[in-house]
């Protein structure tokens, strides 16, 4: 049997199996999921040959399956992350009911993503895309009352995106006569001269999943309301499917950029770049006023995706590379962070930062993961986040000359420190409240995936070359021909070289030397005290006194940046929705309920047709 069909079969049977097993022994539902994904990962990385193509026909439509270097990057990302997330999920979801529902959709959504990765024609791409969408929707509404509205929002926006995509896809078929992606590109579907709407529609479709500015409003809610073990994938991997598509389309558009369509391409580039930038800023400033850690992370995801889109929009070598690099890194650290949130949720029962604090002593491993991931998120050297951001800035300044966008991005990334700190502080630092006395560290199957992700972050930070290798190959598929990066050496257009390993080595040496020296020195005579032992003007804090500063953490910033908070995209969409609902309400009033009116309609319709029959009908 063909390996691709086998993988799909395994996925679907896994989904059904986990559903059935839940009826018999709910405990093993999660393990089934893990095993399914593990088997598929094994098959994928051992059996699938890169650049091999399988042709078949379904419903009279020619289809192709195959993996290329570009999608391979995403395959690593998706399968790796889902493997860890499913391991995490076993204990995380343990006490919930309806596990069969959850896990079968869990597997299906991963099946959708893997399917997207190896689809090489638009129809199977779309099919898997939609499978991914509705299965993830079903998981979003898994939580019932709390998540119902977010789920609906998610589904509606996904539908807008998916149907924009479908419009483009059938238009490609109509105008260029093929559903195969590579043929469509060859036939010039993305030339950006004749049918400009085709790539734009596709981009809109992908932008929804990638949570780009006006279409992002579903993301914060959907990310924060679904179970965290799934959100790790949802935000980490599924949003990257949008990036995958955008990368593909943009690369073809840019590579077909000629004098004829230069202006169009320029406009596209600017619009996309600025949308990405504004997404990053707005999501960031909304992230830092959140009090729920999950929601904070969700907004942060949107912001990070904004960077990635900015990188893609440049279309330059360094920019695309930055985007892909950030995409992978984001998947890793956001996966880890959502797992952290999940661990906290499971152990403490809430992720509301106003209610808990000071978990660092109770959950040290979780904190370690959170710390490493946050450092990567904030883009602080020496972890991977910095490498990606560095490339992004270099690309914007040196290659695409988009100077003010740099400022926007930089503003967002500086403000990102604020919410990064807020996250760490809110959950792990601060007073050890009485409520968390009983809290224990998360079980080991939850710790392992988190720590693995943290270690990956450290390794990729020190040796980003590990990731440059597959990314460079993937970019060659996209048409960036002379991508040939050495391990860890980056070159920008101005011919300047930067050796990341060198930097990291320096940092590492300094780190080790000073760390050992000072730790040894400071440890002597150090006394560790509890968090209640603080200098409060001699007052003795009582047990019930809340000494942790949590509410309105960034109130001064909020006041300073008040204009930015004034009009949110949510509100605009809400207004639009209300207007539409009014229209819907109006249309249904056509059906008055009076039988006579209906009869009148018939006669009027008849008369009108008879009056206009000569214009309507000809021989």
């Amino acid at each position, binding site marked *: 049997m063909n390996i691709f069909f086998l993988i799909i079969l395994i996925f679907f049977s896994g989904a059904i199996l986990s559903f059935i097993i839940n009826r018999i022994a709910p405990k093993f539902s999660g393990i089934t999921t893990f095993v399914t994904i593990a088997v598929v990962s094994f098959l994928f990385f051992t059996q699938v040959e890169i650049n091999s193509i399988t042709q078949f026909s379904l419903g009279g439509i020619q289809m192709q399956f195959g993996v290329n270097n570009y999608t391979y990057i995403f395959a690593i990302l998706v399968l790796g992350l889902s493997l860890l997330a499913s391991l995490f999920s076993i204990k995380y979801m343990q006490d919930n009911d309806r596990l069969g529902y959850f896990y079968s959709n869990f597997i299906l959504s991963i099946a959708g993503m893997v399917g997207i990765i190896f689809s090489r024609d638009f129809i199977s791409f779309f099919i898997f895309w939609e499978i991914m969408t509705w299965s993830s929707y079903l998981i979003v509404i898994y939580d019932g009352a709390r998540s119902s509205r977010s789920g609906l929002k998610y589904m509606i926006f996904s539908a807008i995106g998916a149907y924009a995509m479908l419009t483009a896809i059938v238009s490609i078929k109509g105008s260029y006569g093929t559903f195969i992606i590579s043929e469509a590109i060859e036939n010039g579907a993305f030339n950006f001269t004749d049918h400009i709407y085709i790539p734009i529609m596709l981009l809109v479709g992908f932008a929804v999943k990638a949570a780009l500015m006006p279409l992002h409003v579903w993301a914060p809610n959907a990310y924060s309301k679904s179970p965290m073990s799934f959100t790790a994938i949802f935000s980490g991997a599924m949003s990257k499917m949008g990036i995958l598509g955008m990368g593909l389309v943009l690369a073809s558009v840019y590579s077909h950029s000629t004098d004829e369509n230069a202006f169009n391409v320029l406009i596209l580039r600017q619009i996309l770049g600025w949308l990405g930038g504004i997404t990053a800023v707005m999501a960031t400033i909304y992230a830092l006023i959140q009090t729920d850690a999950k929601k904070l992370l969700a907004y942060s995801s949107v912001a990070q995706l904004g960077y990635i889109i900015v990188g893609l929009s440049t279309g330059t070598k360094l920019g695309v590379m930055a985007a892909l690099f950030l995409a992978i890194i984001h998947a890793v650290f956001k996966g880890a962070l959502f797992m952290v949130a999940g661990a906290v949720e499971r152990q403490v029962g809430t992720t509301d930062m106003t209610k808990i604090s000071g978990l660092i002593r109770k959950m040290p491993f979780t904190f370690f993961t959170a710390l490493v991931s946050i450092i990567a998120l904030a883009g602080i050297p020496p972890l991977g986040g910095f490498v990606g951001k560095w490339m992004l800035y270099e690309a914007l300044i040196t290659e695409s000359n988009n100077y003010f966008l740099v400022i926007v991005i930089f503003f967002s990334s500086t403000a990102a420190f604020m919410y990064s700190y807020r996250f760490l502080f809110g959950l792990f630092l601060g007073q050890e409240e009485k409520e968390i006395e009983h809290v224990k560290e998360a079980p080991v199957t939850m710790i392992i995936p988190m720590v693995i992700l943290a270690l990956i972050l450290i390794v990729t930070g020190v040796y980003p070359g590990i990731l440059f290798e597959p990314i460079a190959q993937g970019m060659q598929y996209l048409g960036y021909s002379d991508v040939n990066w050495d391990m860890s050496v980056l070159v920008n257009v101005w011919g300047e070289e930067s050796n990341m390993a060198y930097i990291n080595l320096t940092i590492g040496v300094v780190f080790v030397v000073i760390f050992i020296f000072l730790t040894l020195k400071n440890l002597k005579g150090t006394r560790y005290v509890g968090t209640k032992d603080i*200098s409060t003007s001699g007052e003795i804090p009582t047990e019930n006194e809340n000494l942790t500063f949590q509410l309105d953490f960034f109130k001064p910033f909020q006041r300073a940046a008040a204009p930015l908070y004034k009009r949110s995209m949510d509100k605009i969409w809400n207004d639009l929705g209300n207007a539409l609902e009014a229209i819907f309400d109006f249309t249904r009033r056509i059906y008055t309920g009076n039988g006579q009116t209906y009869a009148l309609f018939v006669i009027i319709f008849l008369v009108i047709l008879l009056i206009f029959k000569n214009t309507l009908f000809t021989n």
Partner: protein
Amino acid sequence: MINDKDSQKIVDYIQNFARKQSLFVMAYGTGCGAIEIPATMTSRYDAERFGIRGAATPRQADVLLITGYLATKTLKRVIRVYEQMQEPKYVIGFGSCTINGGMYFDSYNTINALEQYIPVDVYINGCMPRPESVISGFVKLQELIQQGKADNGKKYRENLEWYRTNQKKIIKNWKMPDYNW
């Protein structure tokens, strides 16, 4: 080498010199004496030239300056502040009230002798002591530090039980946290 007695002396000298020249004062403005502190710090008397400088929190402070009478309620806070300070730490009793209760000697709600509750290095008498006296008190403290005689944190630690008994006599509802030194 550092265990060598002579070199230890030199090291001690240097350390004490630094301690003496850099006094971070936690001014506990308990009574009316607090009014003299600004005068001492500002241009006319300029205590900073001796390396004396205010500290915001007990963690950073070297000197606890009790300025005036100490109500029984306040004592609790003073003890806590004192215990939160890092060693070596010094206490200056400021004004007559800290010595023997001063004009409040028979008041029902002030303590009479600060020494009963925390070890005091230097007293500055007067009601109020002028900034000159304050500075001279600090200079006295510096001398003590230089001689290595002013480490009363150790004394407090060693005689903790005695101090606690005294403290508990005044503070009826003892809810102080235990510091596990």
